């Protein structure tokens, strides 16, 4: 069936078989390869994107379910001039990644977390990222990055 949705601010109209998963629509149809297929069982969070502003696991959403909605991937967090979002910047500055496979999902889950709770405690960050696995076990720096991003968003003038 025909689906029409806004992906990273651009209106897209495509033919989608009902069983097409949102992650495959993003990666294969649109060529947006930031979100990864990890476990494929709603566990690992590598495929996390924002659907109407909220984090979802796109391996467990049909593209047709997203019809009429707005989707944001990690590509969409970058400004047109290439400037990274505060969350992405904080991941870089705090070495919040090792192999990088989980990073796009971690970044999107963190963006959703900070939208819902702009001033999380460390414990709330850890619980808020419960649905994202880092198999390098680099959690400490990831949590540091999210806390740094929260500070940066609260006071953009502060130096990192």
């Amino acid at each position, binding site marked *: 069936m025909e689906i029409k949705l806004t992906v990273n601010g651009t209106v897209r109209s495509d033919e989608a078989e*009902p069983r*097409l998963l949102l992650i*495959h629509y993003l990666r294969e149809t649109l060529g947006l390869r930031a979100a990864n297929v990890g476990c494929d069982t709603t566990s690992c969070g590598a495929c996390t994107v924002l659907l109407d502003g*909220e*984090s979802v696991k796109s391996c467990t959403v049909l593209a047709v*379910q997203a019809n009429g909605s707005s989707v944001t991937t990690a590509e969409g967090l970058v400004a047109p001039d290439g400037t990274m979002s505060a969350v992405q910047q904080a991941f870089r500055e705090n070495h919040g990644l090792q192999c990088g496979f989980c990073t796009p999902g971690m970044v999107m889950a963190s963006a*959703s977390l900070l939208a819902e709770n702009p001033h999380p405690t460390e414990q709330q960050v850890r619980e808020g990222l*419960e*649905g*994202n696995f880092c198999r390098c076990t680099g959690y400490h720096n990831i949590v540091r990055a999210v806390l740094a991003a929260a500070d940066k968003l609260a006071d953009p003038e502060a130096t990192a």
Partner: protein
Amino acid sequence: MIPASFDYALAESAEHALTLLAEHGEDAKLLAGGHSLLPMMKVRLAQPAVLIDIARVPGLSGISLDGDQVVIGATTRHAELASSALLRAEAPILAYAAAQIGDPQIRHRGTIGGSLAHADPSADLPVTLLALGGSVEAVGPSGPRTVAADDFFTGPFETALGPDELLTAVRVPRGGPVSWGYQKFTRRANDWAIVGVAAYGGRVALASMGGTPLRATATEEALKAGASVEEAAELAAEGTSPGYDFHADSDYRRHLARVLTRRALEGRTS
């Protein structure tokens, strides 16, 4: 993993969903958040020919008060339950239980109606509805009906709902001041309960202690007869036949039921 092919229909109203269900019969499945159904379809545990999407049906979502009850629309998402000021004031055990489901991404998609209709005996919302003594509203070709939580769960992943019926709402008693406790024992983050216990007033319900969520009737009767929390909790596993798996054998589950029931009756959360 990609599900087998199916046709997709977007229901515009509850009546439209019922028409589509009548048209496609048992080949059709209702889709809301899809967080129980889609994983099953990927591994071919479910292979419906038609999915009827009810996620956008107007009026099926939201939390409101009706006399001495809280009414929750079937497509209300777990995240909405967890963050609702109304639910936290009027039925805090339900808001708390919703916050224990999976992880934030799952709570953004999963719905209360979907979780109850899926009827996983280890899941958070079925055991909580049973402890609350709530009910489920459904509509079918012969009109609407209400099913008490005690009669709703009929077997593992089975409910009293007919294949031609649509779960429309959930009702729970308003009970802000009623004492409650909730215990969920897991080995890993975002997992299902190895054993779970929901206690609300004098009602105690157990998750993962049988094919359906179960009332701990011996515990409830002992409490009514004046037994202490410790004495009553010792009876929590009476009459249950818990299964065994990778995580726990049946004896260990009985032990957990006793310990977690005591903690839940003390008003503790996990």
